[in-house]
């Protein structure tokens, strides 16, 4: 029911006569879910994947939820009034979908204690603020395996943004998985100190290609790296979304972020009253991470190896950060046979042996 003035008067009038009936009537009102997006929904990257998640939520819980979203929200103080606006519009569950919204989410949440907030990739929680993240590194283990098997120069590249745990984890997982199938692998790493600058991303990829890298992964926001790979006749991967349209020959596969299952589960939790401010870290197993179809360039044995990594991750028998893992200086960081703890991963600020940066 859309709330018009006439409806409102009617509802209020009924409320006077039949309070008990109205309470159950309100319970059937759809849950309003708000989303705060960093970029444009058409970016075919980070924001696009969250938007797909929103659509999946709307589809799965038809009639039970309504959704709102705001695009192009900056990671500064201007995000707070936008979040408050969403809360005032009656959204009872709000997802803030970028790391840089951390303190803003907490600030807005303090003023709207009856609204449930969920902050993506953050670590600060409150009574009504939960956090969620995806095990992106699980996808890196798959692309690393493919890179290690397909590189002829034994040199693979990585164009990163900033030295933050999320990116460092990706570099390390990519490198470790590649070394597992090809011990001679070295990873050349360029951090470009920005999330978005297509020209610089392209120049970094060209530089890596010039230095002998024949497979290049990226953790930046545009498909520029893939376009350079296409031009240089080497290989690359999409990140977050299938980017094969930008580089039909170079694009081997992509790790896909599918936020839908998570958004559906959280909306259900709010609807049945079981929502708690959790810290959720899902991956392949829970279905928020998947791989895009392998391209024709990926041979059968490589496909099989990559599929084995995915299957092992799902059933829990494989984890790329299983020891022994040594850092660049040779110091042992994870003892043989042990798995790295989540807490250690989330503060990772060192590169594994074989990363040249």
């Amino acid at each position, binding site marked *: 029911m859309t709330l018009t003035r006439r409806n409102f008067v009617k509802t209020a009038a009924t409320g006077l006569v039949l309070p008990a009936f109205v309470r159950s009537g309100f319970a059937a009102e759809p849950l309003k879910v708000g989303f705060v997006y960093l970029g444009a929904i058409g970016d075919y990257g980070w924001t696009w994947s969250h938007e797909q998640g929103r659509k999946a939520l709307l589809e799965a819980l038809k009639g039970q939820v309504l959704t709102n979203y705001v695009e192009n929200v900056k990671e500064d103080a201007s995000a707070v009034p936008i979040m408050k606006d969403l809360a005032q519009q009656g959204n009872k569950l709000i997802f803030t979908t970028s790391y840089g919204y951390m303190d803003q989410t907490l600030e807005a949440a303090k003023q709207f204690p009856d609204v449930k907030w969920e902050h993506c990739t953050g670590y600060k929680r409150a009574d009504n603020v939960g956090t969620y993240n995806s095990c992106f590194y699980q996808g890196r283990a798959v692309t690393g395996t493919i890179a290690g098997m397909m590189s002829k120069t034994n040199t693979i590249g990585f164009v990163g943004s900033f030295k933050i745990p999320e990116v460092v984890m990706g570099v390390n997982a990519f490198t470790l998985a590649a070394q597992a199938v090809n011990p001679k692998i070295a990873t050349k*790493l360029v*951090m470009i*100190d920005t999330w978005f600058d*297509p020209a610089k991303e392209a*120049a970094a990829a*060209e530089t890596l290609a010039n230095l002998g890298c024949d497979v290049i992964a990226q953790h930046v926001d545009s498909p520029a790296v893939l376009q350079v790979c296409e031009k240089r006749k080497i290989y690359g991967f999409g990140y977050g979304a299938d980017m094969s349209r930008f580089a039909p020959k170079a694009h081997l596969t992509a790790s896909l972020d599918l936020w839908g299952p998570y958004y559906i589960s959280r909306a259900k939790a709010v609807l049945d009253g079981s929502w708690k401010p959790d810290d959720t870290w899902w991956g392949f197993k829970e279905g928020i991470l998947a791989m895009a179809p392998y391209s024709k360039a990926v041979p059968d044995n490589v496909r099989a190896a990559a599929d084995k990594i995915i299957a092992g991750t799902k059933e829990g028998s494989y984890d790329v950060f299983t020891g022994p893992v040594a850092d660049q200086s040779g110091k042992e960081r994870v003892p043989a046979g042990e798995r790295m703890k989540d807490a250690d991963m989330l503060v990772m600020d060192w590169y594994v042996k074989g990363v040249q*940066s």
Partner: protein
Amino acid sequence: MTLAFIIDALITVVGVTTPILLAATGELVAEKSGVINLGVEGMMLIGAITAFAVAFDFGPDLGDAAPWVAVIAAALAGAASSMLFAVLALTLGSNQVATGLALTIFGIGLSSLIGAGYVGMTVPAFDSFFPERLTGDPVGRVVFGYSPLVYFALFMVFAVGWFLNRTRAGLVLRAVGENDISAHSIGYPVLRIRYAAIAFGGALAGIAGSYFSMVITPMWAEQMTAGRGWIALALVVFSGWRAGRLLLGAYFFGILMTLELYAKASGFSFLPSQFWAAMPYIMAVVVLAVISARGVAGSEAPSCLGRPFMPNA
């Protein structure tokens, strides 16, 4: 370090430098006529989306001519957007700095609006038009391996240098920038000359923008020029308003930016990566300090830069 390696690095430098050089060359002409247009970034974005949209929508019909038509459209779009600035700043005498900033904000918004439907699309890159056998070996590649826009940028900077210093029309343009009242009193159409200079600057900014969406990464993404317009503006000051130094300065910036990437990829981790990223700007400050310490001798800043001219006031 082999020859092929150095040549490949050089090709990256050229790719990084060309759009900045194009935009700065256009801005140099505008500033020489006494107008400072801070809208370069916005005009570049309008050029970038125009070129991409034309190449994407009409590419199949135009065939081989598509990228050329796209770049011409970008130049026209850049020039047209600069006319908005010109009407406000010249005819209506508004503050040039504020109007230029407004043009940048407008360009960011307009390009995002037009570009919304083009995100996620791609077109063939506007690459070298020389036959493959010329670009096969490294030496051939360093001479013939570029997009036509690279040769155009080099040609334009020489042409502008020649125009400003060796032609009568260039002399008149400089006179308008140095002393608009005198130029007006001896009968030169000050405003018309400035309109033309701004349009030229806008056209080159538009072409510079098309270099992003047609050559470096054949795609459209919001704000894909990522601040290069501001570097172009800084470069004009850096060059002391001289075409020769503009060319050297642009390549100096390009080499530093590329060195940053090579240093990181080769593992020079003794310096933090932020230091490498800041390097071009640190060097710019150093060079500017050296220039100003030597007095204004090397600088040819136009005296009327940024000052509105109202002939009937």
